[in-house]
């Protein structure tokens, strides 16, 4: 595949002290992702992500632009650059780039988009540098560049001469940027597709400082903040007499409805926080889960002013149905539970600010900090730390802005840290949501489909254009927003983390009603979508591809004695996933023993970490479906730590089998897609084992209430 440059594009080459050279990339033209399969043209891109440094010995340093939250982009993104540059991975050193919008774009960890959105730009970064090195060598040898070949950092010509990248890099830096570069054919990839170890594992297992919470700067104070104990409350007055007596506490700072305690150590700041005596008053009405439930259930019976999608004539189809199946599904608010609680370092000076820490969207954090401080963005530097989990929590900037404000008000460099209790009680949550599904059945066929969704603080709790859009002629999808003063945030696979469970559990029940095998039922629906000519946002062949692969690998329909299977499939974040959960009964209790998972995510860049990520998504999904129990009473959360809020642990983690559909298509993401379908796979397997259907998270509570187990 050839790629041409836009004339406005430019390429920065800087000679470094010590004889190395920095090949920087910055294309200013606008980027368009284009339709799948379209040719990448640099002229359509806003900027290229990535830069390469090669020293005279041939050692290659590749900057990793995006924040690392455990999705392993710090390894996989540089792998793509190294592949096209054509160097041996053992000669590559990876460094985390700081926020630098002059050089990189989309320094974001979110939406499972890092590889998908940067795939072509990372390849071009490597390929362009490779071509410049070849051109320089060819010039030296006085041969045509086309006569040269390259492999693992060594350039060879037809006469048998050879030269390393390190020997020629100084000359290459002086050359014009090539107008065209040749990208490798995927079949020639040597690094992409090979198991490549996480570049940070050595430091992780030796306890080296990597995370935001590990930051320590000269003169830095530790800040812990007291926030309102219930949503809806505001700070009235406070007394910090006892706090000031805590040894190590330096000062308190009130900002808005919060009080920061600044101290020499984290522990002194925590003790100071606990010693604060605050009076609270009602700001907005404190809410309870019972209020939310009543309002949301009422929404499910209310037509929306404007449907999200309406095909055919749903009303007539329901009126003439032989049978109507209707079920309601309910999901709670859930904390993100990143194991590294929120924290951030800020040092605000008169002329600028230094920010360091764990944040999924550092560019947005800088913009908001600049707004808060009345500074220009170029007065603020941002370093990106490795994150102890993100899960969407670190897409939000409340903790960054708290750190900035407290540093500004105190005039000190501070590291602001949440305790676990702060995190779970005054943080942000996955919005609670509810769904009502109805289908009309006539002559053993589904003739109409009606979904109404609702949830807290969101404009659309449905995904109206994905499956089964197109598969059913009479199709209506509606959504209602519940305004709530409980603060919410995206949570791994936003919306679909519960919607997929509801939809795929419901379809299982419809298949049962029709007396059809659940896998065959879904494939038939996808075939109908393909034949319908309707518009929708998924590919039928890929959907059926993963369904068939999962069914084949799980030996669907013929489980071993005592094993009960459940099926589910979902398309999210551009990746296709199908899953079979296997449940056994131990002392008459259902136990999730294994999940077999088929994935189509295009080409798999780094299999060893792709499997890790996919397996983690499955177990995370199983854990929150089984145990995720959270509610509010008068604005106060039901739990404040892991002793009152259960997360999945090793003995409960099922075995997971991951199968990728072989593909040379451009990659899509894996941070989220395996999570959404697994709740339904488990619920459907539990039904197969016990005969009881599950409609609410967490399943352990549902089963106890329903008496699903004996």
């Amino acid at each position, binding site marked *: 595949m050839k790629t041409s440059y836009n004339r406005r594009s430019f390429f920065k080459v800087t000679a470094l002290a010590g004889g190395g050279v920095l090949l920087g990339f910055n294309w200013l033209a606008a980027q368009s992702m284009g339709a799948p399969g379209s040719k990448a043209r640099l002229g359509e891109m806003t900027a290229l992500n990535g830069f390469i440094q090669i020293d005279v010995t041939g050692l290659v340093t590749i900057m990793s632009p995006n924040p690392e939250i455990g999705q392993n982009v710090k390894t996989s993104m540089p792998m793509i650059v190294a592949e096209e540059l054509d160097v041996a991975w053992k000669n590559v050193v990876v460094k985390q780039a700081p926020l630098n919008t002059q050089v990189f774009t989309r320094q974001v960890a979110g939406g499972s988009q890092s590889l998908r959105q940067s795939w072509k730009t990372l390849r071009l970064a490597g390929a362009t540098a490779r071509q410049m090195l070849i051109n320089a060598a060819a010039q030296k040898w006085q041969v045509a560049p086309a006569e040269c070949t390259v492999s693992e950092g060594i350039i060879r010509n037809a006469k048998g001469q050879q030269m390393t990248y390190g020997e020629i890099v100084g000359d290459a830096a002086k050359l014009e940027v090539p107008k065209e570069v040749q990208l490798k054919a995927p079949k020639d990839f040597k690094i992409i597709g090979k198991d490549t170890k996480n570049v*940070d594992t050595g430091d*992780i*297992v030796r306890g080296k400082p990597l995370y935001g919470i590990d930051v320590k700067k000269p003169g830095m104070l530790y800040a812990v903040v007291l926030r309102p104990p219930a949503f809806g409350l505001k700070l009235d007055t406070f007394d910090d007499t006892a706090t000031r007596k805590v040894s190590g506490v330096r000062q308190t700072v009130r900002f808005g409805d919060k009080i920061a305690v600044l101290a020499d150590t984290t522990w002194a700041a925590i003790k100071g926080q606990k010693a604060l005596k605050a009076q609270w008053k009602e700001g907005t009405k404190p809410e309870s889960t019972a209020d939310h439930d009543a309002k949301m259930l009422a929404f499910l019976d209310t037509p929306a002013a404007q449907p999200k999608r309406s095909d055919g004539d749903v009303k007539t189809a329901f009126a003439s149905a032989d049978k109507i199946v209707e079920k309601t599904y309910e999901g709670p608010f859930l904390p993100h539970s990143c194991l590294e609680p929120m924290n951030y370092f800020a040092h605000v000076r008169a002329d600028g600010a230094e920010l360091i820490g764990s944040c999924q969207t550092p560019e947005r954090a800088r913009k908001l900090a600049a707004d808060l401080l009345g500074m220009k963005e170029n007065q603020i530097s941002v370093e990106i730390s490795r994150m*102890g989990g993100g899960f969407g929590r670190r897409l939000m900037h409340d903790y960054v802005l708290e750190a900035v404000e407290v540093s500004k008000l105190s005039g000190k460099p501070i590291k602001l840290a949440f305790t676990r209790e702060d995190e779970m009680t005054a943080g942000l949550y996955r919005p609670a949501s509810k769904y009502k599904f109805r289908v009309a059945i006539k002559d053993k066929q589904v003739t109409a489909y009606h979904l109404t969704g609702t949830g807290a603080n969101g404009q659309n709790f449905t995904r109206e254009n994905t499956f089964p859009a197109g598969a059913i002629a009479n199709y209506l999808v509606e959504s209602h927003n519940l305004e709530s003063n409980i603060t919410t945030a995206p949570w791994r696979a936003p919306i679909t983390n519960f919607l997929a469970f509801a939809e795929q559990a419901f379809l299982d029940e419809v298949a049962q009603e029709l007396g059809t095998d659940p896998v065959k039922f879904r494939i038939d629906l996808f075939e109908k979508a393909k034949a319908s000519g309707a518009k929708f946002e998924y590919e039928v062949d890929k959907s059926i591809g993963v369904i068939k692969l999962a069914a084949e690998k799980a030996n669907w329909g013929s489980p071993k004695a005592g094993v009960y299977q459940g099926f589910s499939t979902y398309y999210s974040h551009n990746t296709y996933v199908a899953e079979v959960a296997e449940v056994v009964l131990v002392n008459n209790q259902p136990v999730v023993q294994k999940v077999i998972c088929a994935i189509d995510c295009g080409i798999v860049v780094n299999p060893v970490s792709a499997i*890790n990520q996919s397996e983690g998504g499955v*177990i995370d999904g199983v854990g929150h479906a089984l145990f995720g129990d959270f509610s509010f009473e008068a604005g106060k959360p039901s739990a404040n*730590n892991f002793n009152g809020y259960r997360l999945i642990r*090793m003995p409960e*983690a099922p075995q997971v089998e991951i199968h990728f559909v072989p593909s040379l298509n451009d990659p899509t993401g894996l941070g989220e897609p395996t999570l959404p379908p697994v709740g339904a796979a488990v619920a459907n397997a539990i039904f197969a084992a016990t005969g009881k259907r599950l409609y609410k998270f967490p399943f352990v509570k549902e089963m106890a209430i329903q008496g699903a187990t004996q």
Partner: protein
Amino acid sequence: MPKYKLTVNKKKYEVEADADTPVLWVLRDHLDLVGTKYGCGVAQCGACTIHLDGKAARACVTTVAAVRNRSITTIEGLSEQGDHPLQQAWVAHDVPQCGYCQAGQIMNAAALLTANPKPTEAEIEAAMRGNICRCATYNRIKEAIQTAANQ
């Protein structure tokens, strides 16, 4: 504030801290040994696991006053070269995702293998139950422990 003489990773330290200060914060804020992580503060997640006289302990609920005359080992001192069989197995199995809990997982597993060099799968699960991995790398953790135990 009282002073405490501590032995951490075979080195002697003297720190000034309130008697109720958890060892976790002494390690992190006083001694700059930040490999021991804070996750919950109530001994529910295991991210802060250290060894006290060779046995696993949760540093977030162990006070500095309680560890006088005892030998503290942290992830930084688990092995001199960073090549404890578990550290090697963690690399071989490419265990971490975010990695935040992994030092605590390794310290807990190391104490397990000292007490029980050839644990069964059920014994590993029981011993590791107190360590949360929010990224859910549990199966790789288990495999890495089995690999290290078989060396």
